């Protein structure tokens, strides 16, 4: 995975990224508002990236998309809310929630995905759609649909650098995303479980032969994805200041676009794709007047469709003989 993380970024893409970075840098130096939009876009995109990474983890492990990923993230955010209501401090609740999310993700794979996994992609997709509805119903049942509020995790401090404002919330979101990605990378790179998971995802039959318990590795993959989703959910709540059942619906759609943009097979691509999408949407909103608010989602999906048709493996995916 380490090798893939780096080598996945093929050379022409490196050039493209460099060009994008230079473009953003020059734009930011020329115009305060450009810089401000870019910074806000990065913070927004870090969240898309986290959820996109969750989707990619599952795709690499089981070659399916979990359509319930966003709702799962939303549900775990409600669990954090409940813990805080019971008097647990924010950060303790945060980490407890990550643990709970892992268990839920793990259990979901074992209980409902594993039995249908080998039937067909369509069967798995329908099960995740069912989970979408089920989780939504459970949350509404337990907590209702009205707006809930949680404490701000990073406080309200705002820093100003040469006319550009950056809130601690934004910095915290970005750092948290980086830390999660690095930890995940380290897990895959330096631990036995990580090695097993990589083996299980790449060559399940061979992995089984050398004694890797492929089934458990896939379940751990789902657990980690749910954990990443919980991070994304909690950060989305903090950015939006309110918690409601529709918390992750728009974010999930952007995460889809980000994951496809980066390549469904590429973890690094998912994160970069998320950040690029976040910046891109903000700059579009600022400078392109035809694309008003209602066209944002269609636009994100025009991007998605274009990428699928022109380069189905995404910006960072390796060329594969296999048809998508």
């Amino acid at each position, binding site marked *: 995975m380490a090798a893939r993380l780096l080598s996945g970024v093929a050379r022409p893409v490196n050039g493209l990224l460099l060009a994008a970075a230079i473009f953003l840098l020059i734009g930011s130096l020329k115009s*305060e*508002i450009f810089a*401000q*939009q870019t910074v*806000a*876009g990065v913070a*927004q995109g870090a969240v898309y990236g986290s959820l996109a990474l969750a989707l990619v983890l599952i795709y690499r492990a089981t070659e399916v998309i979990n359509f319930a990923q966003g709702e799962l993230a939303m549900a775990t955010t409600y669990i954090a809310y409940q813990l805080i209501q019971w008097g647990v401090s924010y950060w303790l609740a945060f980490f407890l929630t990550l643990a709970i999310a892992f268990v839920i993700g793990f259990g979901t794979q074992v209980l409902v995905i594993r039995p249908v996994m080998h039937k067909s992609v369509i069967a798995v997709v329908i099960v995740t759609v069912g989970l979408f509805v089920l989780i939504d119903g459970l949350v*509404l049942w337990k907590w*209702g*649909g*009205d*707006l809930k*509020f949680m404490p*701000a995790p990073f406080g*309200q401090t*705002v820093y*100003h650098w040469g006319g550009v*404002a950056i*809130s601690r*919330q934004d910095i915290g979101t970005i750092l948290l995303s980086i830390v999660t990605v690095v930890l995940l990378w380290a897990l895959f790179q330096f631990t036995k479980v990580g090695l097993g998971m990589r083996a299980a995802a790449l060559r399940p039959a061979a992995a089984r032969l050398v004694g890797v318990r492929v089934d458990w590795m896939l379940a751990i993959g789902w657990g980690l994805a749910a954990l990443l989703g919980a991070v994304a959910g909690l950060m*989305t709540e903090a*950015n*939006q*200041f*309110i918690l*409601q*059942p*529709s*918390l992750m*619906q*728009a974010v999930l759609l952007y995460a889809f676009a980000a994951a496809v943009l980066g390549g469904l097979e590429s973890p690094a691509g998912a994160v970069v794709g998320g950040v690029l999408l976040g910046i891109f*949407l*903000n700059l579009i*909103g*600022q400078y392109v007047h035809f694309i*008003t*608010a*209602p066209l*944002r*989602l269609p636009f994100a999906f025009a991007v998605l469709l274009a990428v699928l048709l022109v380069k189905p493996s995404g910006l960072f995916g390796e060329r594969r003989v296999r048809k998508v």
Partner: protein
Amino acid sequence: MRNKGKMLGALLAAVVVAGFAVSAAAGAHQADPGITKTSITVGGTFPLTGVASAYKTIPAAENAYFAYVNAHGGVNGRKIKFDVLDDAYNPAQTVPLTQQLVEQDKVFAILGSLGTAPGLSTWGYLNDHKVPQVFLATGDSYWGYCQKQVCLGSKHPYTIGWQPDYPAEGRMYGKYIAKNMPNAKIGILFQNDAFGKNYIAGLVQGLGGTSQICDKEGFAATDTTVTQQVLTLKGKGCDTFFIVATPGQAIAGLVTATKIGWSPATFLANVSNIRPFLLVAAQNGASLDGVISSSYLAQMDKTSLAGPKLGRSIIQQYAPALLSDWDLGDSNLEYGMAVASTFVSALKSAGKNLTRASLETALHNMNIKNNPFVYPGMTIKTSAKDGFPLEQLIMTKWSGGAGGEMQPLGKLQTVGH
């Protein structure tokens, strides 16, 4: 298949016959549906879940008020029963639920249903069936104008709204800005739909032109962040922030403005002038002092006033779970009380022999000066020509910082429609 076609033909013929029989039978009845000697059944659809569920305390308060009225003998000896169904703000659900209320539950009238699109999806049906669609909880102008004039294909005499309409409110702010802030450069953050555009139309009218508008940035009702839009408004050099949004995005707009170091003069559409939500904005760092909005309800914290005092005691007794919301200043609760109280007044003046027709007559001859829940001095007034019950507003201004509240700004104004 051919058989089925024949059967269907027979079936249609039979249904026509059955229909005649039913309508003949209906003619023999005396009372309208939903009315008995001891009860009045009304129904309404509200978003108890989904994007607009912040308004779900409205029907809760209405039910509490009816419980209070019922405990004091009801209206002309009849107790009011109010069926509330959840349409999640989706017209595809509003329609069957409204049909259920009318045809299955046999309600006398539809009361207070929330939202413009849900209202539009059912008003044709309700008028066709001559079912009163009373006090829709939306500030669109349709409900007032279309009783007498043709809208979307027909007149809608059985439909009436309640609150002041959006253009009137926008116009009031426009006039205020033109008079008191002639150099203001207004940046508008608006929900990109009919609600937002109606507001802006009123604002432009009040301003007397668009020259003071420096930029407009829209967002979709499903958007949950408005960061990009607020940044753009600041970047264009606007110094006055005009927010036309429902509470979720209004909070985001207020907080974002402060966070990016923008301190404009701020105007807030009164659909979001709900204290608990503004307090959340403050907790997340928004500075609220000086934010201007408006209201048509009595100040909830003024317990010396009759309305807030009565409202609180009703909530305490009949919906105790909502008492903390009341104490926080959730004006949706008071809104519900005010609407329910207006409805009770209309029922009373419709007389002992209550029918849909007599209710309609009463609704178009209101002149209520003693509704305790609206701003003191306001009159709820309609006539055969005027279908807008509330046409007055009081401007308000936030003071007291993060724990503060809205205080009246100037005097009660007649804003028309």
